[in-house]
C-alpha cells in the first residue's frame, strides 16, 4: 500500500490542486470556495508529508519516481517525475506556503474570488510539477504553465499599473524560457546525433551534456542560465520584479517571492550546473560577479525606496543574489546554503509580504511615510513584523542565518574577495530592513488614520504565527532538514568538481507496470 502511494504520490501532488480548481468552479458561494481552496491546499500539504515520511535520506536518487509513456514513443518524451534532496525541500515549501496564502486571501481578494482561487490552485499544481519533473519537456510545460496563472493574478487582481507590470513580467520570463527551449532542443538533437535515439529525460541528458566540448557547454549553459537568471532575478534582469511585486495582490506577491523566484535558482541547480559543469566553471566568475553586484545593488536601491513593497522586492533581488552566489561557489557549503536560503527567503519574505498586505488592506497605501508608530496600535503586528525582519536580516537562530552563513562560507572558500563584498550585503540588509521597521513600526503614531487601525485578526495572526514559527524552526532544526539533501549535494559536488556527468537514477516504488496497458490487455 505504501509503495503504491509512493508510486503515485507525486502525480497526486501535481494534479490534486487542479482537481481542486475544477471543484471551485462548481461551487457557487465565494465563501465556500475559499473554504474549499484552503481544504484542498491543506490536504495537499498532508499528502506532501508522505514525501518527508518516506524519503530515504541516504540516497541521492530520484525517489517516488514515476515514469510513464506520454508523447509518442519515438519522441522520447515521457512523463517522468521524481524527487531528490533538492526538490524535496522546495516542494515542502510550496505546500506549506499555499494553505497560508489561501487563508490570507480571505480578506485580500474580494472580486472574482473563485477565479482567483482556481488560478492559484493551478499555479500550485504547476509549481509542484516544475519542481518534480525529470523530463525536459514536462519541465518546460510546467515552467510555462506557472506563468499563465501568475499573469492573470497580477493582471486582474493587481494594483494601478497592473497591466504594465504583468506584461513586463510575462515578456521577460517568456524571452528567457524561449532561450532555454532553444538550448534544450539543441541538446535533444545532440543526444540524437550521438546515440541515435531521442530522449528528453534529464537523467539521460546529464550524461550527454557533460561530455560536450567546453564551448558548446558554455553556450548551452549561458542560454539556460539566462532563462533562470531572469526568473531569479539576477542583477541586470531584475527590473520586472519590483513592478510585479508592487502591483501584485498580497497572495500573489507571497507566492511570487516565496516560490516562483526559487524556480530560477532551482533551475540553475537542477539543469544548468549539473548538466554543463564545464560551462558552469567557465561562467562561474561572471555569475558570481553578477550576483555579488546584485546583492549590493539591490540592497542599496532597497534602502532608498519609499514604497514598502518595492523595498521588499529589491531586498529579494539582494537575497536571491546570495543564493546564486552560493550555487556558483562550487562546494557543498554553497549548494546547501543556497538551497536552504531558498526556503528561508520563501518563509521570511513571504511573511513580510503578508504583513504588508495586512496594513494595505486597512489603509490602502504602501507609502512608508503614511505609517509609523504602528507598534503602539498593533503590538502583535509589530511583533510579527520584527520576527520577519529578523528572519530577513539573517539573525542567528533564524533559518536565514544558516542559509547566508553557509553561502558566504562556501563562497569564501573559493572566492574570498567576492565573499567579503557579498558580506557587506549583510550590513546593508540590516540597514534597509531596520529602516523599514523604523519608519513603519517605531516612532510616534502621528497619522490620525493609523490611530484607528486594528491589530491582526485571529486569522492573520494564525498565518503570521505559523510563518514566524517556521522562521525559528528552520533556524534550529537545520541539521535534520539538511540531512535529506546531503547525498544529493555530495553527488552534485562530485559532478561539478570532476566536470563529469551528474549521476542519479529513478527509484520507482512498487510495481512499474502501466495500469492502462494492463486494462487494455484484458
Amino acid at each position, binding site marked *: 500500500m505504501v509503495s503504491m502511494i509512493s508510486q503515485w504520490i507525486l502525480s497526486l501532488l501535481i494534479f490534486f490542486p487542479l482537481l481542486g480548481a475544477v471543484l471551485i468552479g462548481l461551487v457557487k458561494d465565494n465563501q465556500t470556495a475559499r473554504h474549499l481552496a484552503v481544504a484542498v491546499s491543506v490536504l495537499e500539504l498532508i499528502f506532501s508529508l508522505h514525501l518527508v515520511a518516506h524519503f530515504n535520506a541516504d540516497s541521492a536518487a530520484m525517489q517516488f519516481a514515476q515514469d510513464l*509513456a506520454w*508523447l*509518442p514513443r519515438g519522441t522520447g518524451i515521457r512523463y517522468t517525475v521524481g524527487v531528490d534532496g533538492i526538490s524535496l525541500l522546495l516542494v515542502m515549501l510550496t505546500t506549506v506556503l499555499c494553505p497560508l496564502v489561501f487563508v490570507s486571501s480571505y480578506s485580500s481578494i474580494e472580486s472574482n474570488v473563485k477565479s482567483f482561487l482556481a488560478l492559484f490552485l493551478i499555479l500550485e499544481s504547476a509549481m509542484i510539477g516544475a519542481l518534480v519533473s525529470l523530463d525536459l519537456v514536462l519541465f518546460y510545460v510546467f515552467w510555462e504553465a506557472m506563468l499563465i496563472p501568475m499573469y492573470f493574478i497580477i493582471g486582474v487582481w493587481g494594483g494601478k499599473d497592473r497591466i504594465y507590470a504583468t506584461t513586463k513580467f510575462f515578456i521577460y520570463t517568456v524571452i528567457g524560457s524561449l532561450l532555454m527551449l532553444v538550448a534544450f532542443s539543441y541538446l535533444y538533437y545532440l543526444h540524437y546525433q550521438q546515440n541515435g535515439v531521442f530522449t528528453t529525460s534529464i537523467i539521460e541528458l546529464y550524461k550527454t551534456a557533460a561530455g560536450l566540448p567546453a564551448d558548446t557547454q558554455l553556450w548551452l549553459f549561458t542560454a539556460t542560465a539566462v532563462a533562470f537568471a531572469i526568473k531569479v532575478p539576477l542583477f541586470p534582469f531584475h527590473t520586472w520584479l519590483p513592478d510585479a511585486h508592487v502591483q501584485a495582490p498580497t497572495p500573489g506577491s507571497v507566492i511570487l517571492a516565496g516560490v516562483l523566484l526559487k524556480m530560477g535558482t532551482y533551475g540553475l541547480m537542477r539543469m544548468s550546473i549539473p548538466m554543463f559543469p564545464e560551462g558552469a566553471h567557465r561562467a562561474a566568475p561572471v555569475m558570481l560577479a553578477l550576483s555579488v553586484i546584485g546583492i549590493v545593488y539591490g540592497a542599496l536601491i532597497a534602502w532608498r525606496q519609499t514604497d514598502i513593497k518595492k523595498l521588499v522586492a529589491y531586498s529579494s533581488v539582494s537575497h536571491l543574489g546570495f543564493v546564486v552566489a552560493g550555487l556558483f561557489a562550487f562546494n557543498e557549503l554553497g549548494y546547501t546554503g543556497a538551497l536552504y536560503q531558498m526556503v528561508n527567503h520563501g518563509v521570511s519574505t513571504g511573511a513580510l509580504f503578508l504583513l504588508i498586505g495586512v496594513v494595505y488592506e486597512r489603509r490602502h497605501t504602501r507609502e512608508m511615510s503614511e505609517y509609523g508608530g504602528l507598534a503602539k496600535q498593533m503590538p502583535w503586528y509589530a511583533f510579527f513584523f520584527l520576527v520577519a525582519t529578523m528572519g530577513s536580516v539573517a539573525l542567528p537562530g533564524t533559518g536565514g542565518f544558516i542559509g547566508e552563513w553557509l553561502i558566504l562560507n562556501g563562497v569564501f572558500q573559493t572566492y574570498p574577495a567576492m565573499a567579503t563584498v557579498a558580506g557587506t550585503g549583510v550590513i546593508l540588509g540590516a540597514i534597509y530592513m531596520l529602516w523599514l521597521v523604523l519608519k513603519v513600526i517605531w516612532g510616534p503614531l502621528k497619522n490620525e488614520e493609523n490611530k484607528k487601525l486594528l491589530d491582526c485578526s485571529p486569522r492573520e495572526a494564525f498565518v503570521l504565527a505559523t510563518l514566524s514559527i517556521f522562521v525559528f524552526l528552520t533556524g534550529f532544526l537545520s541539521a535534520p532538514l539538511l540531512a535529506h539533501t546531503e547525498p544529493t549535494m555530495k553527488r552534485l559536488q562530485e559532478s561539478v568538481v570532476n566536470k563529469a556527468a551528474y549521476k542519479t537514477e529513478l527509484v520507482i516504488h512498487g510495481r512499474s507496470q502501466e495500469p492502462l496497458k494492463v486494462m487494455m490487455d484484458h
Partner: protein
Amino acid sequence: MNLSLLSFIVMGITAVLLSGVMITRRWPVSAAMVLIAIMTLLAGMFGLLEAHFAAAAQIIVYAGAIMVVFVFVIMLLNLPPEELRYGGVTVGEMILIAVSVFVAVGLGTKVGQGFLTTGLESMGVAQGESVAGGHHMYFPASENVKNVAASMFVDYLWAFELISFLIMAAVIGAVVIAKKRSAEHADAA
C-alpha cells in the same frame, strides 16, 4: 473489379458530385441535407475501408449531431435563400478553377494507373500493403473498435484528454456567445 471497389467508386463519385451540388445551393437547408448525404456516403466508404468505428462515428457524430445543430440553426434563423453572385467571380479565379479541374483530371488518370500506390510504397509509407501484398492489415478488421481504442487511449491519451478540454471550452464559449444579454437589452431599451 470486385463489388466493394465498384461501390467505393460509385460512392466516391457521388460524394464529389454532391459536394459540387452542395456549394451551389440557394437554400441552406438543401445544402445541409446534401451535406448529410455526402457524410453518409463517406461513412459507407469508411465501412468499405474496414474502418467501422470511423463509419459509425461519422454518422453518429457528424450526421447525427453536428449537422443537426446546423439544421437547427438554419431553421431557427429561417434564412431566405441566398442570391448567388456568379458575377462576383473574377477572371483570375475562373482560371484557377480551370487549372484545378485540369490538374484534378490529370491526377485522376494517374491514380487510375495505380501511380499513388507505387509512389507510396516506394516511399515506404504503405507498409501494410507491401508486407503481404493483399488487403492485409496488422490489425484484424473485426477488432476495429478495440484497436482504435487501444491506440487512442494509450498512444493518444493526452491528446484525447486535451480534446475533451477543447470541447468543454467550445461548449462554454458557445453558450456565452449565443446567450441573450438581457442586461444590455434592458439598457438599450
